[in-house]
């Protein structure tokens, strides 16, 4: 395997970013399509820039499952935001890290000199995942549309069976690994088993996510990050509605396991929520920063993609972040702020344990154990367990929030990493450009 080269020296800046409120999927389809989430977020993000939407060169969106009537969401977004008929757009898919993949694609476009200003991120409306027809039903319908004559039609009608009417939720298929033959939740059960993670630890971590998210909301941490949305009836959505301020390990302990009933450990409470949301960032070259006189939020310094056994995909972050740390000569706690996507509490805890496990690190990373990650640096404002995990958007949200926290706290280095269904991991090493409080050198551009 060839080790990836260090990134070229051309700096890729994050100018600004914003996200929609993350809205938990409930029984029926949610108030916004994936396209609508992205449009309302994107237009507000562009409105607060000193340049017009026509200055954007390209739009790239991650989306794991775009709806049939908006399959190339990236291009649709470019058109609906008024970027201009001549601005290309496309949509990328790398499961849970589609949003991060979009950011990487934007970086590559800028490095190749094709674009200077790119709108990139991700969106997902999981509540609107289609309910499909059974395969047998689809075949029957095809025969019916070809049928001519009463006799043929009657004979087809006799061939109908009740089980053909059973609806197939696309969402469940999407959350099931087609090669390993396990659901995402079962991969987390695998990790719980491999690392002996008790149920109580999972529930405690889950409660932590809610407490931190609620605290962040009360302190208006998300004020600049979240764009309030308005639905067709004039109702305002201005906060992440999955956060439970009454969450405790005790309450979570009462929930039943969903993926390996009845003896499993992973519940709806200690898993990420099924959610609708969008997160968008503006990436720029140095030339664009100068041309428009921008004050960037930060830089994406480096990226790494890794792959592993799909049955334990939750360890993806370790496989992706560790090479980044090694390349840049950093330890776990040399990173000021970590965003590690909380697909499942068990999965995050497994990652933390893996880094501390000497045997595991030597076997899988070829290096000694990296040690204990300081919890005060990890997901400081909660994570996907409380906020939700709209599959296409999360990869972008964690990059955005990491940079926002670095700015707010006057810190400098961040890592956003994410496990990927199908057995992959993605990581981005980030540097803040905002003036840091109590630091001698200022990193602000122009």
């Amino acid at each position: 395997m060839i080790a990836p080269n260090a990134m070229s020296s051309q700096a890729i800046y994050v100018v600004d970013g914003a996200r929609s409120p993350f809205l938990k999927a409930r029984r029926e389809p949610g108030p916004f399509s994936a396209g609508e989430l992205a449009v309302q977020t994107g237009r507000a993000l562009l409105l607060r820039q000193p340049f017009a939407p026509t200055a954007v060169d390209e739009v790239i969106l991650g989306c794991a499952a775009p709806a049939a009537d908006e399959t190339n969401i990236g291009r649709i977004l470019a058109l609906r935001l008024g970027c201009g008929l001549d601005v290309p757009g496309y949509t990328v898919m790398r499961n849970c890290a589609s949003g991060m993949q979009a950011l990487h694609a934007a970086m590559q476009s800028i490095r190749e000199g094709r674009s200077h200003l790119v709108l990139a991120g991700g969106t997902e409306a999981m509540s609107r995942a289609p309910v499909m027809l059974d395969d047998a039903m689809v075949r029957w319908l095809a025969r019916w549309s070809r049928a001519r004559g009463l006799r043929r039609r009657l004979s087809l009608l006799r061939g109908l069976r009740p089980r053909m009417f059973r609806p197939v939720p696309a969402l469940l298929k999407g959350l099931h690994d087609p090669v390993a033959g396990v659901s995402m939740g079962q991969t987390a059960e695998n990790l719980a088993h491999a690392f002996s993670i008790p149920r109580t630890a999972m529930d405690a971590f889950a409660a932590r996510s809610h407490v931190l998210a609620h605290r962040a909301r009360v302190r208006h941490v998300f004020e600049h990050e979240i764009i309030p949305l308005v639905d067709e009836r004039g109702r305002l959505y201005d906060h992440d509605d999955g956060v439970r301020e009454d969450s405790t390990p005790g309450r979570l302990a009462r929930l039943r396991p969903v993926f390996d009933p009845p003896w499993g450990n992973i519940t709806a409470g200690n898993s990420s929520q099924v959610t609708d949301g969008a997160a968008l960032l503006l990436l720029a070259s140095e030339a664009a920063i100068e041309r428009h006189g921008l004050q960037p939020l930060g830089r994406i310094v480096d990226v790494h993609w890794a792959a592993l056994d799909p049955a334990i995909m939750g360890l993806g972050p370790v496989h992706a972040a560790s090479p980044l740390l090694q390349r840049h000569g950093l330890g776990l706690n040399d990173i000021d702020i970590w965003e590690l996507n909380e697909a499942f509490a068990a999965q995050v805890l497994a990652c933390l344990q893996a880094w501390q496990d000497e045997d595991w690190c030597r076997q899988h990373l070829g290096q000694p154990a990296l040690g204990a990650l300081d919890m005060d640096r990890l997901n400081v404002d909660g994570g996907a367990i409380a906020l939700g995990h709209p599959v296409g958007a999360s990869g972008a949200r964690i990059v955005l929030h990491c940079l926002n926290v670095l700015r707010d706290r006057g810190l400098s280095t961040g890592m956003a990493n994410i496990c990927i269904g199908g057995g992959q991991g993605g990581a981005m090493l980030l540097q803040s450009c905002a003036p840091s409080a109590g630091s001698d050198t200022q990193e602000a551009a122009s």
Partner: protein
Amino acid sequence: MTPASDMPRFHHLSLALGAEGIAWLGLDMADSAVNRLGTPLLQELAQVLDHLGRHRPTAMIIFSAKPAGFCAGADVAEFSRMGAGEAAQAFVARGWRLFDRLADVPWPTLALIHGHCLGGGLELALACRHRLAIDQPDTRMGLPEVRLGILPAWGGLMRLPRLIGAPAALPRVLSGGSTGAREAARLGLVDAAVPLRLARQAAAQHVLAGVTAHRPPLWLRTLNHRRLRPLVARRAAKAVQRRDPHGHYPAPRAMLELWQTVEGNPLRTPGVMAALLQSPVTGNLIRVFQLQERLKDIGRQARAERISQVHVVGAGTMGGGIAAWCALRGLRVSLQDANPDAIARALGEATQLFRRRLPDALAVRAARDRLMPDPHGHGVPHADVIIEAVPEDVGIKHALYAALEPRLQPGAFIATNTSSLPLEQLGEGLQAPQRLVGLHFFNPVAQMPLVEVITTTALDAGVFARTCGLVHQLGKLPLPVRSSPGFLVNAVLTPYLLEAMRCVDEGMRPAVIDEAMRAWGMPMGPLELADTVGLDVARAVGELLAGDATLPTSLRTHLDAQELGRKSGRGFYTWKAGKPERPPAGPVPDGLAERLVQPMVDTARDCVARGIVADADLADAGIIFGTGFAPFRGGPLHDNPQRFEEAQ
């Protein structure tokens, strides 16, 4: 086949022979942006029929070379100069006979309609065997003659009921409303709505396809029978009676009479048309139409650069309504308010407006994309104009201007929707007061066509032009008014409302007063209007205009009891579900209406004398379009010319 060199040349239309022997007749009136059926064009049409009678085509397609539309109808200017005598009768007869002739030609004819197709233009299309309409939002067909106090005299009244059935045709002719392409296809008014990319091809194929002319089903056709027409007309007459219980407008009843007796042929009973033409109502309605054109011209001729992005501050009833209307008309809008819920509510109502007015879901979505919530005012540096509709308080507005001014794009200007604060005083809050203009919309924004453009001596001429241009872009009528309390409309309305309240002080019942004014021709009585506007607003404007003259007791009593009118459920009336409970009025005293109108007339005259409005015609136009003042009277000053002359 006629060689091309034998084709005659015309000034107002083009005639060409196309493939398969189809004659293509293009309406293209000289020196005009729209086609109008004046005598020259009608004469050339007759010549075309002469020529084609000698050199028969396989078919004829009539289209328009004007981008704006097919045909806007008869030339109203030419027509209104004719009076009621022989010239008018001849004008009517010429059109009727020509279209009859067109309907009888032995080759198939097709009208290819785009844009506006109104009045005589639609009658021309109805005389063709087939019609195709181009499927675009600006394709509108209608017979609006009733709005000018006349009736479709060139065959529309006969042919439309025959084509789509009387139950569908009569209400449309009586209201003068227009129909879009898809609905026209559904009704059978046109054979189909076709996309632009297929128009000429579809016309050529359809006209030669040998399809018989469209007819409604048998049961609808029988309703056009001589014996059944009176029954049908009686039903339609009930709707007319409801809309015009006092019989101010003779045209609808004349139309029903003409249709029921002679199936709409004015040549068989020339008296009907003559009576209408002689009626002062017709003259006044034509005058109102011409006043409307004059206001439109103010906007058209401003020739200002297009405004593409607007920032609205204040998401209340007015601000939200203005923002929604701007987005409907294609502008990008950012809407700011300190309260995000207010913005959300405004957006919800905007969505309803878009659904009512836009043809399909795609257009609705595009309009919603253009209307952006902006609680932090990020849209200010991107806007060509800022429209502010924040509360009526000088302090609040000055603070807003101070925050806005440094962030404005060069060339951007500020328009204030204030109804009671002096522009000069507001301008003191700006470093550059020449970029402040008053833009006074009326409530509800979506329905009221008038916008007062308030000027001061400081106002920059370029800003004034761009403001008039903006009003034109919004499809509304700009009325330039010099800054003064109440501007024109509120200044004129308030003494009228206060006088009505004084009548209540004297013991008259509100229902009687309002009935007097409705019988006189106002769309709504003064006390119902006061309740709708809000008694607190009435007091504020009253104090502003009347100075320290005492307010009517009845007004003060209601206000002290917190009865503000419709918005609080009680005022001069009790309001339930947005409607007032009106007790029966009983007999109306003589002279009451005149007594109430007098202050309106006096104030209007005064506004003209002081130069608030440029002339009496514009004052009339403003009052008609801003208050719904009885259009059949032609306007308060027009209705009272003698007294106006006396005052001079």
